[in-house]
């Protein structure tokens, strides 16, 4: 057809739509660039939309993809449960759907490319405990209340930290995945808990804010563990201010999702799940994550 669309990455006749939960967060920006690189490499046309963390807007976008006759859809769900109707709608139009980063509950997708947030939370707990010498007080900086990322990471961390009786979580407060709020909330918590030696932040942005608040204590007296492995986060690991970050390799995630989507669009069979491993980046291994 002769649409006036101007998709990014390639001009092949395979059109793929991708709805990203949010582009407000460097993590998902990287997910997108991985996807775009792969699309370019494979010569397919890719349309990326930003759901701005709004599940219903995401449903709208997937519906719009079906009107546009996309050959495959990649959805990075805002919420695993809420994505189901969108996936069903695509299914009715016989468009294969790949879930990236988070799974979809209550509907069948062709493939889930995910890194396990709960698992990542556990790894974060283990790494933090290790660096704290398995004792001391910890505060948790939570993401936006009610989001699945916050829920799963928090849950994993809580489960993981139970294994260390010497470690006590003295406070858990929301900082909305935001660097400024991470700074403010950490400053406030330091007033009531000046003796903490560990911080778990449910994403790198908040961790970086917390490091600002901790000043010289960050990396020495207080160990901060973040989540996501964003460029700024990895850099902080390198500098030694961030003790560790749970890196999810968003670029790999994006690449994998597009590769699978193209296969599905061509009618090739693909695996039910692909797990992109979560890795803990510490000062020792951070160089592996560069790029």
């Amino acid at each position, binding site marked *: 057809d002769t649409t006036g669309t101007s*998709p990014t990455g390639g001009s092949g006749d395979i059109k793929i739509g991708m709805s*990203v939960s949010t582009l407000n967060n460097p993590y998902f920006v990287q997910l997108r660039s991985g996807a775009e690189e792969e699309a370019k490499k494979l010569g397919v046309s890719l349309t990326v939309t930003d759901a701005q963390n709004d599940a*219903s807007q995401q449903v*709208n976008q997937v519906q719009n993809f*079906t009107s546009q*006759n996309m050959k495959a859809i990649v959805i990075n769900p805002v919420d695993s449960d809420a994505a189901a109707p969108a996936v069903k709608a695509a299914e009715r139009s016989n468009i294969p759907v790949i879930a990236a980063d988070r799974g979809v509950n209550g509907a069948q997708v062709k493939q889930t490319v995910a890194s396990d947030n709960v698992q990542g939370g556990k790894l974060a707990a283990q790494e933090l405990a290790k660096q704290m010498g398995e004792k001391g007080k910890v505060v948790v900086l939570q993401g936006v209340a*009610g*989001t699945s990322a916050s829920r799963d990471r928090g849950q994993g961390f809580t489960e993981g930290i139970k294994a260390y009786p010497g470690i006590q979580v003295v406070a858990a407060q929301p900082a909305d995945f935001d660097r400024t709020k991470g700074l403010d909330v950490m400053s406030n918590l330091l007033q009531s808990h000046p003796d903490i030696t560990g911080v778990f932040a449910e994403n790198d942005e908040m961790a970086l804010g917390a490091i600002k608040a901790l000043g010289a204590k960050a990396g020495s007296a207080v160990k901060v563990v973040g989540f996501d492995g964003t460029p700024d986060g990895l850099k902080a690991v390198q500098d030694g201010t961030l003790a560790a970050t749970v890196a999810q390799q968003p670029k790999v995630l994006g690449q994998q999702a597009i590769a699978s989507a193209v296969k599905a669009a061509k009618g090739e069979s693909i695996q039910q799940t692909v797990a992109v491993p979560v890795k803990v980046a510490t000062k020792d291994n951070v160089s592996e994550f560069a790029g």
Partner: protein
Amino acid sequence: MSSRTKVLLSENGALVALVVLAVALSLLSSDFLSVSNLLNVGVQAAVTAILAFGATFVIITAGIDLSVGSVAALSAITLAYLSTTSGLPWPLATVIALAVGVVCGLANAALIAYGKLPPFIATLAMLGIARGLALVVSQGSPIAMPDAVSHVGDTIGGYLPIPVIVMVVMGLIAAVILNRTYPGRAMYAIGGNEEAARLSGIKVNRQKLVTYALSGGFAAVAGIVLASRLASAQPQAAAGYELDAIAAVVIGGASLSGGKGRAFGTFVGALILAVLRNGLNLLSVSAFWQQVVIGVVIALAVLVDTLRRRSSN
């Protein structure tokens, strides 16, 4: 031009903007004018439109309701919690969910009418309170909607989406209330000149209760439609929708200083926002540029209207 058409166009200048926008999009994208896409737009406008109908009442009285998004979420969570978690029959749960919306509205109105709080503050407080309660009730996790209610998100005959029907019905209700009922006429008088309304025997405080209760009730309906579409009630649903709802009302020709506004205008305003978002997706505008384009088009849409009005004078 018949006088009816004239009135329609002069009082709903936004309609002109909507038509221009639709024509432009159908030229730019061959996908836009398909029936299925237009129905899509309708579905996507539904939640904002229903919230905006409720906000229209409030804005006509020169008030503002920032809490509509949160109240929508709280109502949906209430419904899902009561029926799915507590096992109440869904019709009862639905009635209670609607009542929750109305009660939130009444609480807003009580603070405004009797506590003399500025509507901005009272409803900003409710924005936080209702959202917080939604999180508390749901423990931060989505709750599945009962299947019976989830059908509200479906289509009739695989074609006509029920959210569109609900939107149209709520719009008609809003129009009838505004044009034909005592509370509706009182809203215009209160927004136009509260003191004159009071001295004419209108019980201003009581009418404000009605106004905000309606807004809360409409928000509850919007919340249920939203949750039904997703088959799941989300504690974070409709966050930030208050600005969209108010924008729809103002694009539709109402004034935040009160006394003006129509249900039809609001409907057009909500459609403009939905068409715009749909169009940007169809045209694959990059995510970073989308916000810029939305901003520019909203400004242009209202500008068309004011310029047209000025030149016709």
